[in-house]
Every structure is written in structure tokens, then in C-alpha cells.
């Protein structure tokens, strides 16, 4: 492979929500930055596959980074979403006790939350719980009004797009294979797409952050994959809950317990499970876990029916705590103590999403202490997202169609996504062209028919308006082709 001499002040390995947040944060300063992402698009590791909750910060031991950064992130999240033009809703959360002993746990969480400076926490009784959540079974609850929901994939994409606008270079399908420290103390990063050199490397490789750290230093970190499976319910079931519904967390497990998340798009997520697995990329769902999720759902929300399930998916937590121990270790955000200018982000699991921007700020601080960064006066914090036709009022819809008839053609019937939005999704600044990339940006294929109507139409748009060959049409990069060829020999030139 030809060596490309790409030098950047900072190379960020890993384009998840944290990597992209760091890229954006750094682009506020006069530095050259590159993000190397091994997948076809940003956020395909952990960032797109969680519940999308911006936690308030009461779940974490006081004094830890998880507690501090979560609370800090939660308080500034609305502003961040406004700047990035991504949806945000402060929907609130109830942690529901079903047994008397659990109320003690609720009180502990409240105390911890207050110590962490979380606002508005209240213990509510069954009458108040019934008023807030008529369909939930419980005897008491901890109510957290500051907990919010977002779309984790829209956020990650928006962070990346804004960083791109502000001068950051993104290299997708680019995987770091080895890293060498050069005599001038720069790094040389060898990837499948050539070499990069940089003064700083930021290791935000999520599930593979241990592997990347090991490229420069002794085997210090170990990431254990812990999978969580989810169900997604049809929007028709969204009336069942009004807030995030969580059980009282059990100590020593890998997660916060199976919870019920109303998403920003009005689906309901049930999950996640938590199960330590062997492979870091095993995103399979299993029938045992799905049965367990159904049983948990029945415990809290008997009105939920399996008929409402439209799909399931899984995400994998990057845990530092080994399977024998479970539970959580604190975030690692630090410069390596054996390799200068190599900054490690290890074990960023929940509340990584809420903490993304504060984590990014901490990383900038680390670099600033060494470099005295100067501000980029051209930095523009604002980014415009794809306008959702379905959300507009009638007058606006009419005006949009008049201005651009592609707004009048509905491609995804279930989610009412127009051709214009699909065109914009395909034409995204990062150049991602897989069906999943289009799905995340436009919401097409996320409805109850799961692409039954729109898939053919989207493929025609990819071919006719973007000139993709049949072979190039893929689901999620990496050999995920859709077609083996044309049906007819006449045209069969692949």
C-alpha cells in the first residue's frame, strides 16, 4: 500500500460519540485533527446501540469521574443538542420499587444524587407513581426530572459533521494496525489505508481501546465485552409510558437493569440485558434473552404485548470490570504514564453518552496544559441537520413541497420520510453510503414494516441518482452486499 504522508497535530482513533465529541472540542482551537474510524460510518461501535439516555447522575459513586462528568454533561446537553440541531427531550425517569426493601435503595440513590449535585430528585409514593405512570406496577419510585432522551446516532453524526465543518478530517474504513513512536517523538500510525503521523494520539477506540493502548504500551488495560439486547416496540404502544422506567439496580451486575425507554422517535425500547460474552463484535440476539426481556416487561408493564415488537438489536458495553466482579470501574481519561502525548479513554460505558462533551473537554485540558492551544476564531458551533418533513406543520409542508417537489414524494411510509430527506441522507458530508447510514440519518426503514416498502425505492435512488453499481449497494459495509448480480445475463457486468 502506498504510504500517504498525512501529518496531523492530533489523530483520534475511534469515531464514536466520544471520539467525535473530542474532534469537535479540539476544532475550537487551531490544530489539525484527523479521526480514524474502522467502520463505514461513525458511531457503529457502541454509540449508536444504546438507550440514548442522558442520565442525571445519581447512579454513580460520588467523587468519581462518572458522577462528575455525567452531571456536567446532563446540565449542558440541551445547549449541545440545540447547537447541533438534534432532538432532545427532558422526559424524566422513574426508578420503580416493587418491594419494600427496594425503597431503601431508592433513598440511597437520592442521597447519592444530591451529593453529586443532581437537581429535583424526589421519592414518590404509589399514588403519585400512579398519576405519573398509570400503567406501571410499583409501590414507590425515585423520580428524576433531569434525565433526558436523545437519538444517540443522530448526536454522533452531528458531532462528526460539525467537526468536519470546522476543519477535522474523517477517515472512514480506516483501521489502526500498529503505532510507532518516532525519534522526533511524533507517532506513526499504520492503517489499512496508509500511514498517518501525529504529535498526539487520542485512543477513543471503545471496545478496542485496550488493543490500541497495547500498540504503544505494556498490556495495562483489558476490555470485557458485555452485551445488552433490546426489543423495539411499535409507536402504537408509545402511550403506555410517559417517562423512562427503570427497576431498582442490582449491585454486582453488568448493567442498570432491564428498563423501558420511550425514544425520541416515540418507540419504546425494552432492555438491555447484560451478559458478558467472548467476542467483541458479536451483536447477535438470543432467544433466551428475548424471553427474559418479555418476562421483565410483564413484571412492570403488563399492557405490553409481543405483537407490538417490531425488531430487536444489541449493543456491547466496553467494561473494565471482569466477569467475576461485574459492576463498574470509573472512566479512565488520562495521558499514558509510559508514552508521552498518548491519551487513553478506557471503559467509557454508561454514562458515556451524557458525559461525552465533558470527557472531550477534559482531553482538551490535558493537551492544553502541554501545548497552550490558541483559539480557532472561525469555529462555528452550529450545525444544521436534515429537516424532518413529518414534524412540520401543514403550512410549512406545503411551502417545502412547492420549493422542492422531492418533499412531496413519501418513500418510507411508516415513518413518513420524504425523497428529499433520503437524498440528503445519502448525500451526507461524511460520504457514508450504506443502507444503515441512510437509515440512521433519515429514519427510513425504522418503522414497523422494516423497509418492506421503502427498500426498493431507496435502492433505485442510490442507483439512478447517485450512480451506485449493484455491487456497491450494501447494508453496513464489510461485504454486506445486497445483490449477487443482475437477474439477467444481458446486463450482468459486475
Amino acid at each position, binding site marked *: 500500500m502506498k504510504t500517504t504522508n498525512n501529518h496531523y497535530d492530533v489523530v483520534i482513533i475511534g469515531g464514536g460519540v466520544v471520539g467525535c465529541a473530542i474532534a469537535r472540542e479540539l476544532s475550537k482551537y487551531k490544530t489539525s485533527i484527523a479521526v480514524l474510524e474502522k467502520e463505514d460510518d461513525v458511531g457503529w461501535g457502541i454509540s449508536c446501540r444504546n438507550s440514548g439516555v442522558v442520565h442525571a447522575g445519581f447512579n454513580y459513586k460520588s467523587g468519581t469521574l462518572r458522577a462528575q462528568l455525567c452531571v456536567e454533561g446532563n446540565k449542558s446537553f440541551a445547549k449541545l443538542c440545540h447547537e447541533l440541531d438534534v432532538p432532545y427531550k427532558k422526559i424524566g425517569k422513574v426508578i420503580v420499587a416493587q418491594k419494600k426493601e427496594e425503597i431503601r435503595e431508592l433513598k440511597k440513590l437520592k442521597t447519592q444524587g444530591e451529593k453529586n449535585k443532581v437537581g429535583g430528585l424526589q421519592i414518590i409514593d404509589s399514588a403519585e407513581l400512579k398519576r405519573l405512570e398509570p400503567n406501571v406496577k410499583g409501590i414507590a419510585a425515585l423520580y428524576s426530572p433531569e434525565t433526558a432522551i436523545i437519538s444517540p446516532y443522530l448526536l454522533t453524526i452531528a458531532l462528526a459533521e460539525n467537526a468536519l465543518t470546522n476543519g477535522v478530517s474523517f477517515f472512514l474504513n480506516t483501521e489502526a494496525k500498529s503505532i510507532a513512536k518516532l525519534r522526533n517523538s511524533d507517532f506513526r500510525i499504520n492503517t489499512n489505508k496508509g500511514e498517518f503521523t501525529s504529535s498526539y494520539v487520542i485512543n477513543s477506540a471503545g471496545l478496542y481501546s485496550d488493543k490500541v493502548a497495547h500498540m504503544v504500551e505494556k498490556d495495562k488495560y483489558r476490555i470485557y465485552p458485555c452485551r445488552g439486547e433490546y426489543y423495539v416496540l411499535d409507536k402504537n404502544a408509545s402511550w403506555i409510558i410517559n417517562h423512562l422506567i427503570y427497576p431498582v439496580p442490582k449491585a454486582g451486575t453488568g448493567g442498570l437493569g432491564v428498563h423501558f425507554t420511550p425514544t425520541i422517535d416515540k418507540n419504546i425500547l425494552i432492555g438491555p440485558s447484560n451478559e458478558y460474552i467472548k467476542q467483541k463484535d458479536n451483536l447477535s440476539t438470543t432467544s433466551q434473552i428475548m424471553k427474559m426481556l418479555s418476562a421483565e416487561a410483564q413484571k412492570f408493564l403488563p399492557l405490553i404485548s409481543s405483537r407490538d415488537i417490531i425488531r430487536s438489536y444489541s449493543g456491547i458495553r466496553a467494561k473494565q470490570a471482569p466477569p467475576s466482579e461485574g459492576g463498574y470501574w470509573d472512566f479512565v481519561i488520562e495521558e499514558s504514564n509510559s508514552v508521552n502525548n498518548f491519551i487513553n479513554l478506557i471503559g467509557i460505558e454508561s454514562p458515556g453518552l451524557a458525559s461525552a462533551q465533558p470527557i472531550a473537554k477534559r482531553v482538551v485540558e490535558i493537551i492544553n496544559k502541554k501545548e497552550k492551544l490558541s483559539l480557532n476564531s472561525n469555529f462555528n458551533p452550529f450545525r444544521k441537520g436534515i429537516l424532518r418533513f413529518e414534524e412540520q406543520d401543514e403550512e410549512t409542508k406545503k411551502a417545502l413541497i412547492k420549493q422542492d417537489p422531492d418533499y412531496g414524494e413519501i418513500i418510507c411510509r411508516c415513518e413518513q420520510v420524504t425523497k428529499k430527506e433520503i437524498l440528503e441522507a445519502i448525500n451526507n458530508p461524511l460520504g457514508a453510503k450504506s443502507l444503515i447510514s441512510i437509515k440512521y440519518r433519515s429514519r427510513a426503514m425504522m418503522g414497523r414494516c422494516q423497509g418492506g416498502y421503502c427498500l426498493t425505492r431507496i435502492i433505485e435512488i442510490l442507483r439512478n441518482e447517485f450512480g451506485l453499481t449493484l455491487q456497491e449497494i450494501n447494508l453496513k459495509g464489510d461485504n454486506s452486499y445486497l445483490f449477487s448480480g443482475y*437477474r*439477467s*445475463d*444481458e*446486463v*450482468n457486468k459486475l
Partner: protein
Amino acid sequence: MHREFICILCPNSCRISVEYEGTNIKNIKGDGCPKGKDYVKNEITNPLRVFTGSVLVESGNFSLASVKTPVPIPKKYLKEIGEITHCLKMKAPIKIGQVVAQNLLGEDIDLIATRKVNIINK
């Protein structure tokens, strides 16, 4: 030899049992009408099927024109005819019943169009 056939001629789907040796039929039971009996006889001696498939169309409002054999053809030729359709191409407009190909495989097998395709201006 004994075999039970499901007659395909109409939705009644009569189950007809046959005893036969080679192409020599000894006994037929369960046929709901004379057509069914003939059908089973044919299934043993010379099974016939209508072939349906598609051919490419140039400049049409559909990329493909669906086609069929106007009469049932020997079952053994179905896959081969399928392969042949992959090499055929027509120009729009296409009318239903229009001849697409004739005497395929030298066996008097024709293909006619079954979808109306209009010309589009590109």
C-alpha cells in the same frame, strides 16, 4: 408404484391416488372430474407446465416484461427456458400477448408477453 398427486387444475386440489408401473396406469382414485384424471395420467406419462418468467425491456416504464408460454410445456424444459429468458431483450412498447420468442429449444416453445409496457421518454 403408488403415488398421491395433488391436482393443480382448480382450487379444489383433489388428492388423487394412482397405482402405476412405468407409464402404465393400473388404478386411479379420488379424481373429482374427468380433467383431474387426465391431469394425473399426464403427470405420469408427460408432465406439462406453463412457464412464466421475465425479459428485459428497453425504454419501458417497467424494466422487465413478464412472459409465459401460451401452452403448458414439458416440465423438463422449465429451467432451460428460464436461462434463455436471461438473454432476451425487447423494446417498448409491449402489448399483452405479443410474441417474444418462438420455437425455443427447437421444441415449438413460444413465449408471449404478459405485462403491458409503455414507452417512457428518458
